[in-house]
């Protein structure tokens, strides 16, 4: 009875660890080895479009609305203390440090991550990956690597765009609608936002999230059970696992960057 349960725990631990091992090997298989720029560059550009440009709309809309909501909520609190002049720093710091990287990563997991998992899972199920291998072309280099790099390049840029649009949204609500002084909105922001402490740390966060999300998405697709159920399960797992991982890493990074 107990031995049975222990055995089961041991089993699932081993398979989890083996899963990490496979994922690690996959990543290194894809990224090590000399890159071939002549063939690799067009593939990368295509993925930058598919992963980055096609995610742009959802990022713009979400950024705008989150900025507007932040300004609205922030104003209601600040105005009680007569501190509505601090609306600019409140909106921009919330976005740069937290909401920009985190929400972008969550949206990215839902929009691009799930699509990547499904795409690669389907390639596996329809034997496209196997047949590529039989043509002596390494699917890790041909399929996985360009998607990985495209994701790593796109996510920080998307997060920056998210921030910029959010700050504009805050301006729209705070200044245009609620009547905060435009000069104080911008100058207080300028005075309180530090390039390294706030902007760069946000970029570092979203770079880490990019690695995590894209790695999970690619691995779940590559490791999917090659059936329709397997692919749908893998797609769900990508969104759930990647979202939780982003929130977990966010806490750790926040503690390291702003904790002390």
């Amino acid at each position, binding site marked *: 009875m107990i031995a049975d349960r222990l055995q089961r725990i041991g089993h699932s631990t081993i398979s989890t660890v083996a899963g990490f091992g496979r994922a690690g090997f996959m990543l290194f298989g894809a990224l090590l080895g000399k890159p071939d720029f002549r063939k690799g560059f067009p593939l990368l550009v295509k993925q930058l479009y598919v992963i980055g440009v096609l995610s742009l709309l959802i990022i713009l809309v979400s950024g705008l609305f989150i900025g507007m909501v932040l300004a609205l909520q922030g104003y209601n609190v600040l105005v009680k203390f007569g501190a509505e002049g601090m609306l600019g720093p409140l909106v921009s710091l919330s976005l740069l440090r937290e909401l920009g990287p985190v929400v972008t990563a969550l949206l990215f997991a839902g929009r691009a991550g799930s699509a990547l998992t499904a795409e690669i899972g389907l390639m596996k199920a329809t034997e*496209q990956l*196997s047949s590529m291998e*039989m*043509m002596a*072309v390494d699917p890790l280099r041909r399929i996985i690597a360009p998607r990985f790099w495209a994701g790593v390049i796109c996510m920080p840029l998307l997060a920056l765009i998210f921030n910029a649009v959010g700050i504009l949204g805050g301006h729209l609500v705070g200044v245009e609608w609620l009547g905060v002084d435009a000069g104080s909105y911008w100058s207080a922001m300028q005075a309180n936002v530090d390039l390294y402490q706030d902007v760069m740390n946000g970029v570092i966060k979203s770079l880490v999230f990019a690695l995590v999300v894209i790695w999970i998405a690619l691995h779940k697709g590559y490791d999917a059970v090659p059936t329709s159920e397997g692919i749908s399960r893998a797609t769900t797992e990508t969104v759930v696992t990647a979202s939780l991982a982003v929130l977990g890493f966010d806490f750790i990074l926040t503690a390291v960057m702003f904790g002390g």
Partner: protein
Amino acid sequence: MLSEILIDIQGLSFSRGDRPIYRAMNMQVQRGKVTAIMGPSGIGKTTLLKLIGGQLKPDSGKILFEGRDIPRLSRSELYQARKKMSMLFQSGALFTEMTVFDNVAFPLREHTKLPESLIRRIVLMKLEAVGLRGARDLMPAELSGGMARRAALARAIALDPELIMYDEPFAGQDPISMGVIVRLIRELNNALGLTSVVVSHDVTEVMSIADYVYVVADKTVIGEGTPEQLRNDPSPLVQQFLRGEADGPVPFHFKAAAYQDELMELTR
């Protein structure tokens, strides 16, 4: 002088998890011939092709391709060897995001430095050979099942391989495209001097094109010979398979407890 035997499988054993698929199997494929491997579904025919292609590693035994043991090759040697073989997957496995033309051009662009004009000429030639020159600008989703398989065949012969392996080329085809594919396999084999391995459970088609046939069941080869020899094979197993009978030495039912016992259990 090239050896007459292209693939030599010696004492091959392979398991999926703890379920054995092959046990100490021997098999040889003659150069320039059409060799067929027949057996019921799920017996491990696709698995065997993947073993030959080096995608899976056997538990023990040798798989010699041109005298070199595939499972023992280094990664780059394996990739060199794979350029001489090609495999036609059951589903065709065309790359869905490329046109038929780009699919056929794919191995050429990956492995040669030929100028685009020459690649174009080769691709059109290969497409002509399978009767799909007019379909070059279609996407794989726009092709019928039979056309997709022929397009995949054009891609498989793009690099003029020594060996081509067909996984269930006849499964799910209408009678006309079945006939087309049967003829193509034979013609390509003779015209290009290829060696062909055809894996299938369609007895009539296989017996009509194969030079040599292996019947695989119960984790090993149960019968072999030319189609003529096989028809006269005394083994009841082989005869059951050739005639497609459900009852015989090979059980039709998946292994289970005796039916009566289970029924009794229900009434108890």
